[in-house]
C-alpha cells in the first residue's frame, strides 16, 4: 500500500481460538500497583504465538 502502513499483522480476533489460558503475568505484579497496565503483558501461550 502506498498511503497506509499497518504496524501489526495479528488482529485480536485471531487470539480467540487459543486465548484465555491465564498463564500470563498479572499486571499489578510487574511494576504498577496503581493502574491497570495490561497491553504490555507478554503472552505465554505457545499455541497462541
Amino acid at each position, binding site marked *: *500500500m*502506498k*498511503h*497506509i*502502513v*499497518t*504496524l*501489526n*499483522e*495479528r*488482529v*485480536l*480476533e485471531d*487470539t*480467540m481460538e*487459543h*486465548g*484465555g489460558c*491465564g*498463564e*500470563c*503475568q*498479572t*499486571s*499489578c*505484579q*510487574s*511494576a*504498577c*500497583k*496503581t*493502574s*491497570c*497496565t*495490561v*497491553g*504490555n*503483558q*507478554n*503472552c*505465554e*501461550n505457545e499455541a*497462541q*504465538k
Partner: protein
Amino acid sequence: MVHQFKNNGFNIAMDVNSGAIHVVDDPVYEIISRYEADSKEDIINDLSKEYGLEETKEAYDEVTLLKEDGKLFTKDIYMPYLKSFDSRPIVVKALCMHIAHDCNLVCKYCFAGKGEYNGEREMMSPEVGKKALDFLVANSGNRKHLEVDFFGGEPTMNMDTVKQIVEYGRQLEKTTDKIFRFTLTTNGLLLNDELEEYINKEMSNVVLSIDGRKEVNDFMRPFRGGNGSSYDIILPKYKKLAESRNQENYYVRGTFTHNNIDFSKDVLHLADEGFKQISVEPVVAEPSEDYAIREEDLPAIFEEYDKLACEMSKRKKEGRGFNFFHFMIDIDGGPCVAKRLQGCGSGCEYLSVTPNGDLYPCHQFVGNEDMKMGDVDTGVTNTALRSEFRKSNVYSKPACQDCFAKFYCSGGCAANAFNYSGDINGNYKIGCEMQKKRVECALMLKAAEAMM
C-alpha cells in the same frame, strides 16, 4: 470503532476492535474520518481538490481494502466469547504478600498510610506466609506459573519471613507442577551486597522505588522525623543492583504528583543516571490532598507525556533508548483478547494477603474491612464479593464502551474506580484521560520505530 490522532508528525489510525494500528498519510486520515458518514462520491469530490483525483481515489481504495480485510471499521464481537468464560473454574494465580505493615520511610502519598494500612504496625510470620502459598497452590487449578510479590510497607524489614516463604515455594515446586515467580517491591534503604545477591538469585523482578530528581524524591519520600536524604542512600544501591541484573528484570519506579507535573524531567533524570527500565506513575490520592492530581493539571501532563515520548524516540535512534513502563505496548505478540477484556484479575485471580493472613481483592483494598474476602486458613469465604469482581470486565463498565483505550487498560483499576465512584465498575476520569494519552504516545513510538 476507529480512533485517529496526530502525534509527533505521525497520523495514526487505531481500529479499536481488531487492534490493527495503521500509520496513514493526510488523504487517508481525512477519508477515514468521513468514511462511514459520507458517500464515496462526496469524499472523493471534496478531497481531490487538495490531493488530486488519482491520489484520492487510490487512498480511498486502500481504506476499503483494509475494511474488507477486517482491519478497519470492525465491530466488537467479543461479548459472547467472554460470556463463555463464566463456566470456567475460579483459580487464584497471584498473591501480593504484605510482608510488613511497617516502613522506614513516611512517604506522603503512601496508600498504605505510611506503611500500616491504617491499622497496627505488623509483620507477617513465616507460618502465615507458608499457609498463603499452600492456599495459592490449592486454588490454582491447572495454572503452572504462580506469582508472589513481596510488598509492604517495606518487605525488607522482614527478610527472614521472605526467605522462609521462598524456600518453602522452592520445595513446593519439587512436589507439585507449579513454578513460582517471586518479585519484590522495595524502597531500597536496607539494600546491601548480601540482599542484592539474594534478590538476584530468587526474584524474577524487583521494583525499586525512587521518584526521580533528588529534591522531588526527598520531598515526598522523607524519613520519620524528616532528617536526611533517602535519595542519597538509595541511588548508588539501585545503580549497582540494576547493573548486576544486566539492566533487565527490574524497574526503578516513581510516583509523580501535583507537585512535580514536570515529571518528564524525573524520568529523564533516571535515564541519565543509567537506568534502562523506568516507571513513573501518577499518584492516586484523595482529591482533598494538596499533592493530588487535578483535572486542570491534565493539559500540562499531556504535554509532559508528549515531550517524554519525543525524547525517547530521539534517544532510541541515537542508540541510548530506555523503557518507560507506561509506554510499553506489545501490538503484535501481546495479550489475547480474553486477557484484555478481563483486566488485572483482582478479587479473583489476584489477591492480597495481610500480615495476619486476611485476604483482600488487592493491595489497594487492604484496610477496608468491607472488602475482606477471607483468610489463608479458610480461603475465600466472601464469595458474593468475589463474584462481583469476577463479573467486572470491560463490558460491565459503562464509561468504557466508547473508549478507544479499552483493550489496553482493560477497563482500568478496580480500586481507583471504587475509590472515586464507590463502584468497581465506575471510573476514575482523571486516570482514564491520562491512560488514553499514554496509549497514544505508546503507539506513536511504535510508529516511529517502524519508520526508522
